[in-house]
């Protein structure tokens, strides 16, 4: 077994273990942390596939930002496990059916009929000077210009919609404008009153 193979199986085993833990742990915070571990191991596998840009971006975006916000929310929720588990037996047949359909679909797409070394030849290993990031950038901004821009616009719409949802007037909040605070002069706030001494 070559070293690469060993590393691949190591990361794959950790990935499968972590993914299983995500759906079986009772504590949602533990699940979220196992999801982080799953992201790390898949980033490791992508590195082995010489996709270093995608691997680092997976860590940067999903582990560094998305999962932090996820944890942020999950930690503050008070999840009642009893009500969550109440209908487990009742919904199980439907859940199993959905899982089965999804498994069959995945098998049809990435099953042995259209996957494997005889169908898709292994890409040639690139030299150490090969720059994955640059190649991706070149393709994204030339060949896939329009899909890329459309994706960007959809994201922008998503951002605006999310901000729009939280926009509401709350007159009771005491909002302070720092620039106004900084510009305050002594004369605006302080008045010296001359008073005669009392006798």
């Amino acid at each position, binding site marked *: 077994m070559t070293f690469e193979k060993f590393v691949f199986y190591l990361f794959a085993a950790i990935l499968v273990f972590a993914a299983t833990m995500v759906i079986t742990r009772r504590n949602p*915070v533990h699940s979220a*942390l196992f999801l*982080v571990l799953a992201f790390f191991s898949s980033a490791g596998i992508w590195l082995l596939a010489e996709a*270093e*840009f995608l691997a*680092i*971006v997976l*860590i*940067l975006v999903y*582990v*560094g*930002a998305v999962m*932090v*916000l996820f*944890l*942020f929310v999950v*930690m*503050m929720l008070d999840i009642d496990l009893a009500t969550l588990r109440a209908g487990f037996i009742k919904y199980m047949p439907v859940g199993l059916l959905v899982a089965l359909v999804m498994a069959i679909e995945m098998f049809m797409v990435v099953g042995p009929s259209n996957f494997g070394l005889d169908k898709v030849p292994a890409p040639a290993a690139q030299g150490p000077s090969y*720059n*994955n*990031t640059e190649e991706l950038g070149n393709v994204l901004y030339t060949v896939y210009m329009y899909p890329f821009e459309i994706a960007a616009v959809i994201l922008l719409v998503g951002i605006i919609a999310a901000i729009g949802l939280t926009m509401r007037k709350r007159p009771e909040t005491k909002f*302070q404008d*720092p620039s106004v605070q900084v510009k305050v002069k002594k004369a605006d706030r302080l008045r010296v009153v001359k008073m005669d001494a009392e006798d």
Partner: protein
Amino acid sequence: MDSLIALWEWLGTNLIVLQILIKIVVIVAPLMLCVAYFTYAERKLIGYMQVRIGPNRVGPKGWLQPIADAVKLMFKEIVIPTKANKTLFLIAPLLTLGPALAAWAVFPFSDGLVLADLNAGLLYILALTSVGVYGVIIAGWASNSKYAFLGAMRSAAQIVAYEIAMGFALVGVLVAAGSLNLGEIVRAQQSDAGIFGWFWLPLFPLFLIYFISGVAETNRAPFDVAEGESEIVAGFHVEYSGMPFAVFFLGEYANMILISALTALLFMGGWLSPLPASWVDGVFLLGDGIHWLFLKTAFAGFFFLWFRATFPRYRYDQIMRLGWKVFIPITIVWILVVGLMVVYKFAWFS
């Protein structure tokens, strides 16, 4: 015995692993020493700034103070709160220290003096510094204490906010240098203008924003609301004692040194000499060399300590305002300006 011989032969054929391990030790051991004496420098400097003497009892002029602190922390009892999540409680400090050390793998100390010359070095550093927040969040949650949890929540929101500004500042550097490789970024700053050829001048707003965001990312004063000892006692590490606390401490200072060194590398020319190359090329100590990097790192590190002695803590809503409403718009505008400068080959980019 046979297995030992096999291991020895395997090492012989795979010496590269051993070489890398030795290189890691050569980088990490002095770094740890720097961390120890950075704490001493902080206490001394802030002492002088506040007209005190600072630590002066252990060893001549207090030089052995960090060693005494380390020994003390090592022999203290490790207190684990009842109902704390024990595993996560003990993993959290390691998650703070780990990324701070791992980031040095791609750090070029001088021309070619680097452990892993990564093409995407800048991205790697950005990814690792963003992972550092997990230590704080997990520590706050696993402690099962409300003060720790408040600290963790504050820290998470703050780091996510400032990471975006930091990332945009790095995009400016990337546009200016045209490479993600840290060595290439330094070489792009080489010119016959010396100090004026470095990126701090054309990228001045980004330089300031990067450094200030770095201070916020490391939870240092005036952005240390995650600790906020006057409101939430010590924030995320209130329940920690002994060695786990020491590891948090090491992580914080290692992160500060990392941010200082990165500022030196990305904006202040790394190992380049501040004097024009044609004057000092090959002149002893005046030419390019690792000592310039150390000097610049120390210069940036000094600001961390100076800030702490000077500024009162920010109010939380103003931290958020500064991050989202001031820094991010400035960085976006300046990325555009840098792009135009590069396209039209303005002064630095001709």
